[in-house]
């Protein structure tokens, strides 16, 4: 199963990248809010493995995993978090706003629920322009309580838009557990109220995620309209680097760590191994390769330039707008 190795590599890339981010945050190379995806890697890796390169993705502030799995280079992501002009958003967005349209990444949105209408709109444009493309929209279970969730699922279903709604249910919205957030804990019941297919998936199992995505995409591409996936997962780290994580017990976290998506996959890879295969050596090889990639990204970000301050007022309006650019000097 070669694909297992490719998923594994992808997930290790996200994990190691973020572990490095933690260090770099402490070293104040990265600032602002930093939301880690550690523990949830199987979701991005699984979904993206079934999207086509030109399919679109709308993500949230917790978007490193999506960017990396969608093909954005680690260099561009790391430089972004360093606030450098070579970052994927020229250092203007930071961790929460990774954009790379060339790779189909229509940004991390930091307003909870704010990306959902955007995803519906992208999909609507695709249909009108006859582009055979699906937009995958990621959001947390906390976002399900927002009005935008409701309005967008209804609209997308009514208009049969090619959107894959990916709800990353990690059981907490910052410090609020899902039981304080949702009247009905089964999110697929709610999603079904919009007359669309809604399935619950083990988000710690990359293969289950990929399989569900494949089924959903087939239905969407066949014109069946949007599909809702609830991806049951857990974040191993605090909500953001600011969060002391007072609201969860270590027992709960440890319990979920037993289902670490990397462990789950490592076990399968071990089981796959033919007698004599040195799986551990391959794990170490992947780790070394990924570490080299992360090192390279950090070196690149470190060496990259800052955007000149004169450029600050560029792209408030398009370059070809008649609106005059402001001078930066006040």
């Amino acid at each position, binding site marked *: 199963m070669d694909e297992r190795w490719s998923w594994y590599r992808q997930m290790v890339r996200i994990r190691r990248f973020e572990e490095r981010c933690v260090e770099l945050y402490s070293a104040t190379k990265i600032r602002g809010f930093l939301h880690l995806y550690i523990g949830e890697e199987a979701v991005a890796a699984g979904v993206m493995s079934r999207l086509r390169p030109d399919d*679109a993705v709308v993500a949230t502030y917790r978007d490193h995993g999506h960017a990396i799995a969608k093909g954005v280079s680690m260099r561009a992501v790391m430089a972004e978090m360093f606030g450098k002009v070579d*970052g*994927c*958003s*020229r*250092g*203007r*967005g930071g961790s929460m*706003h990774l*954009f*790379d*349209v060339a790779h189909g990444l*229509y*940004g991390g*949105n930091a*307003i909870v629920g*704010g990306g*959902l*209408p*955007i*995803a*519906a*709109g*992208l*999909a*609507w*444009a*695709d249909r*009108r*322009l006859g582009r055979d493309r699906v937009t995958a929209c990621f959001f947390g279970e906390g976002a399900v309580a927002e*009005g*935008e969730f409701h*309005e*967008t699922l*209804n*609209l997308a279903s*009514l208009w049969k838009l090619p959107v894959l709604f990916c709800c990353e249910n990690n059981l907490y919205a910052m410090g609020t557990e899902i039981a304080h957030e949702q009247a009905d804990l089964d999110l697929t019941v709610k999603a079904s109220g919009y007359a669309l297919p809604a399935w619950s998936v083990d988000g710690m199992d990359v293969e289950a995620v990929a399989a569900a995505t494949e089924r959903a995409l087939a239905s969407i591409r066949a014109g069946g309209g949007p599909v809702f996936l609830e991806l049951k997962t857990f974040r191993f780290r605090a909500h953001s680097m600011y969060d002391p994580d007072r609201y969860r017990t270590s027992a709960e976290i440890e319990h979920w760590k037993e289902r670490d998506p990397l462990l789950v996959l490592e076990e399968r890879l071990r089981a796959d191994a033919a007698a004599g295969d040195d799986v551990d050596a391959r794990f170490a090889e992947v780790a070394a390769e990924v570490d080299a990639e992360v090192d390279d990204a950090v070196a690149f970000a470190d060496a990259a330039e800052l955007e000149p301050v004169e450029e600050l007022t*560029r*792209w*408030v*309006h*398009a*370059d*070809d*707008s*008649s*609106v*005059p650019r402001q001078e930066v000097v006040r």
Partner: protein
Amino acid sequence: MTKTTYREALREGLREALAGDDRVVLLGEDVGAYGGSFAVSLGLLEQFGPDRVVDTPLSESAFVGAAIGAAMGGIRPIVEIMTVNFSLLALDQIVNNAATYLHMSGGQIHVPVVIRMTTGAGRQLAAQHSHSFEGIYAHIPGLRVVAPATLEDARGMLATALADPDPVVIFEHAALLPMAGDLADDAGAVDLDRAAVRREGTDVTLVSYGARLHTCLEAAEALAADGVSAEVVDLRTLRPLDLPTILASVARTHRAVVVDEAWRTGGIGAEVAAAICEHTFWDLDAPVARVATLEVPIPYAIHLEAAALPQAADVVAAARAVVA
């Protein structure tokens, strides 16, 4: 020349936009089967079909957000919000997404969406249907905000807005919809960059936009009878302000009255007044006066509504005080 109305001029602008470019779609609540809540889009569904003239559910945030996303995706949506009052429900999408994506993405994401809505009072619709929140939009970098006050602008601003690479918000004043007059047969796109001097004068500049332009023109007439020559400037574009035109007028008249239908505190009038003072301070012969709506939720009863809104008599009084 053809006899027409502001409403029909808006409609012809929409018709032309839909006819001229397949990527253009009109969406919003009741733009289709109902014909538009103010009958602006009447007949367009029949002409262009339900794929181009799209009735949306009552979901301001989602359908405005979807229009923003669709513009990002390469089509040219014209999205109608029935009134600016309801637009507060979509404000997050407009401010946090439409106005920021281009800059925040480092120039990658263009959002050429056109957002139309009615604004204004004067029809006894009370406190949840009568307010003038254009100032909120005029505060936001990344947006272009315009307000047609004439038939030409009602007819022509949409085409220019659609050609604009960035989000444009168009404020149509509900009380102007029945306004009738002549329009050139070849009327079409108009620029969005310049304010317009609608009446020349020498003693005082009246600065306004939308329905209150006509209040100012009425006031200027009354002032003329009194020997006061008022110049009337129609802002047309609320963001960015065309300061050169405004300031040139005030540099000539040395006096200004700013008239708008928003509440005085922090309305567009505040910005115009502040900018005039900032730039033409040494030319001014009197402080800039403001005439605005009284700071109350607009009431239903006609005498109270009228008392709340800026009337020509108020403009005349303010202008007289300024030239005194």
